[in-house]
């Protein structure tokens, strides 16, 4: 296809020029009456002019269609700005006129050279200009192809770059920079108009103002750098800071102050890290130091038990020891857990956790304990998966603590409600039950460590359950809200 188009175009162009020239010659001959072949000239004129116009139109069409599509009928002239093409075309026209004059004067070819050269010149001009216009028609291509447009855009870009590269130059500074430029220009103007006597003075003044301007600008630019460094220091990104070359003494003071800030920040970070490490070490050591003697207590009580002493009182005492050491073990475990939770020393893997599945699993765990006190579980909102972002193991600990409390303190034979509720972008799991004994205590007091309702002091439990649950919920970016209303105890785990 491409080759064909190229060939087609070349043939049409050649024919166009032939027809044009023939027509031009015919008109000229008719006009000057040089040859005697009037009728032939007329026919040639009409035919060739008509053919010429058709060819011209075809050419234009080919150029228009081929432009911008990389089709071979576009020519190199399409890549040049329009003004240049115009210039070239006009230059070409003038060239042919010059050629015409030359040939007419120095060869004996006679008048016929006029229509041929002049006609060729006109045809060339027409061809080039209209052809390139046709290629640039449509879709703003003409506008884009103009040299002035191109120049204008370049200037705008430079101006934009200038103003955005110096953002620190606030409006005031930009104005003063502008004023300085005007000042320099006006000085130059004055200097150029003064007579010789004042020329040196004007020149000196000019130098002085340039010096002051340069100094002020230097201060501005250094202040910009100081500001950048300050910002980096505030964010702790000390690597982003860079050295300012040839710092003015005032700037040196600022930079020294920033260095002090950096040292202060690094010290604080180190202290924090050290204290965190100490906390972890403490918990590890306490855990070990408490559990080691506890292990021996439990082991030797067990060994005593195996001795099968004949002494009834001794057996009784051993039972007490077994019970109490077991309680101590549970308390130690809870205590270590609460200190880990409240010091944020727990590694939480927060991911999608299906609360519906979790509640089903919890139900399975507590079914016997709840049945032992004739408690009926009423669950709602778990028909479909309900996902929250939490660590499944620790969310289970929260539910475990809450349900453990319920199975110990709820009124026998009553109903226990677990509702999964979603609204306003929050998901809540709400545990509700009626308390067996009176709750003479506010919700806040209950949440405190080691606090238990008066009546629950006789039962198992360390009083840490709600406190642990609260810490864990907060670490999972949620909260535990406890409300006490008469005998109704309500614990809401909200995400």
């Amino acid at each position, binding site marked *: 296809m491409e080759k064909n188009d190229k060939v087609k175009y070349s043939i049409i162009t050649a024919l166009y020029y032939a027809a044009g020239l023939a027509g031009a010659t015919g008109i000229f001959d008719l006009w000057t009456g040089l040859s005697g072949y009037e009728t032939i000239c007329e026919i040639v004129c009409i035919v060739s002019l008509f053919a010429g116009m058709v060819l011209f139109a075809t050419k234009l069409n080919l150029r228009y269609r081929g432009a911008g599509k990389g089709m071979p009928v576009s020519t190199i002239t399409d890549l040049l700005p329009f003004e240049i093409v115009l210039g070239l075309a006009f230059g070409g026209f003038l060239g042919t006129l010059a050629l015409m004059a030359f040939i007419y004067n120095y060869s004996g070819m006679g008048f016929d050279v006029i229509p041929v050269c002049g006609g060729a010149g006109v045809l060339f001009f027409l061809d080039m200009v209209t052809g390139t216009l046709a290629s640039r028609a449509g879709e703003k291509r003409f506008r884009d192809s103009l040299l002035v447009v191109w120049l204008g855009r370049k200037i705008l870009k430079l101006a934009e770059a200038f103003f955005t590269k110096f953002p620190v130059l606030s409006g005031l500074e930009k104005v003063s920079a502008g004023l300085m430029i005007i000042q320099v220009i006006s000085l130059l103007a004055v200097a150029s108009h003064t007579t010789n006597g004042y020329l040196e003075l004007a020149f000196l003044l000019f130098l002085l103002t340039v010096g002051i301007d340069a100094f002020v600008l230097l201060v501005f630019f250094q202040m910009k750098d100081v500001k950048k460094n300050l910002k980096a220091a505030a964010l702790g990104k000390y690597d982003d800071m860079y050295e300012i070359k040839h710092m003015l003494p005032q700037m040196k003071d600022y930079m020294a102050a920033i260095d002090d800030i950096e040292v202060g920040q690094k010290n604080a970070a180190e202290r924090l890290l050290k204290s965190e490490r100490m906390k972890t070490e403490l918990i*590890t050591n306490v*855990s*070990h130091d408490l*559990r*080691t003697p*506890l*292990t*021996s*207590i*439990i*082991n*030797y009580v*067990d*060994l005593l038990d195996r001795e099968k002493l004949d002494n009834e009182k001794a057996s009784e005492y051993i039972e007490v020891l077994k019970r109490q050491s077991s309680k101590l*073990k549970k308390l130690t475990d809870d205590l270590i857990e609460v200190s880990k939770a409240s010091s944020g020393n727990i*590694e939480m893997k927060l991911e999608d*956790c*299906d*609360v519906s*599945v*979790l509640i*089903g*699993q*919890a*139900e*399975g*765990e507590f*079914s*016997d304990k709840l049945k032992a006190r004739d408690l009926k579980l009423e669950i709602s909102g778990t028909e479909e998966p309900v996902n929250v972002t*939490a660590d*499944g*193991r620790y*969310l*289970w600990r929260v539910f475990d603590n809450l349900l453990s409390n319920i199975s110990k303190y709820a009124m026998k034979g009553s109903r226990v409600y677990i509702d999964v509720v979603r609204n306003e972008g929050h998901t809540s799991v709400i545990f509700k039950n009626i308390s067996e004994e009176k709750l003479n205590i506010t919700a806040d007091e209950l949440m405190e460590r080691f606090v238990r309702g008066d009546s629950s002091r006789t039962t198992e439990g360390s009083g840490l359950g709600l406190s642990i649950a609260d810490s864990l919920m907060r670490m999972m970016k949620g909260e535990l809200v406890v409300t006490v209303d008469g005998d109704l105890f309500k614990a809401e785990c909200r995400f």
Partner: protein
Amino acid sequence: MYNVLICDDDKDIRNALEIYLSGQDYRIFKAENGEAALKVLKENEIHLVLLDIMMPEMDGRVCLTKIREFSNVPVIFLTAMNEETDIIMGLGLGADDYITKPFNALELTARVASHIRRYDRLGGMNKQEESNVLRVAGLEINDATKAVMLDGNPVNLTKTEYEILKLLMSHPGQVFSPEQIYENIWNEECLGGESTVAVHIRHLREKIEYDPGKPRYLKVVWGHGYKIED
């Protein structure tokens, strides 16, 4: 006659362990720190090591690494920490098992027996038997006889409990949701059967775990399902 090495920096714990284990007919060696333990290991044939993690001078982990340089003897860690990370790291270093303090005497003696037996038995069982047996650490199912053993002691399970255990043990480490377990065992759609599964799991756990509160094998993945941990 098997030889067991006890290494712990606390004298009372060492003695208590000795009392428990000598009742099982083992010859007991004691060491109060890592260096002493290595010396005993090099001079005697030891069949199992009980190794405390937190000891002064050379701690359990370093000691274990040194032991593994020259011996494959089964090592059980005694640890006061029950952080999952510590346990996983300990097992990763080459320990065969771990027991947390304070420990249950029954569990301890059963685990020791189970590990010694396995070490001894290496390569002992014939191929036919092996293909019917599913084993995870001390827990063993023989599908031909439908027998379930925990550290050598038989466990009585109901048919459903056995099926669930078998399903989980065929894919150790894989989490099964309550729904999946239900559909697999009962072969019908699970509509509200999740709590049934949860109850069976709890009963199963109470039967195969020394401390159902701190299970060694049957683990709950809260919010997702259940698995057998290897």
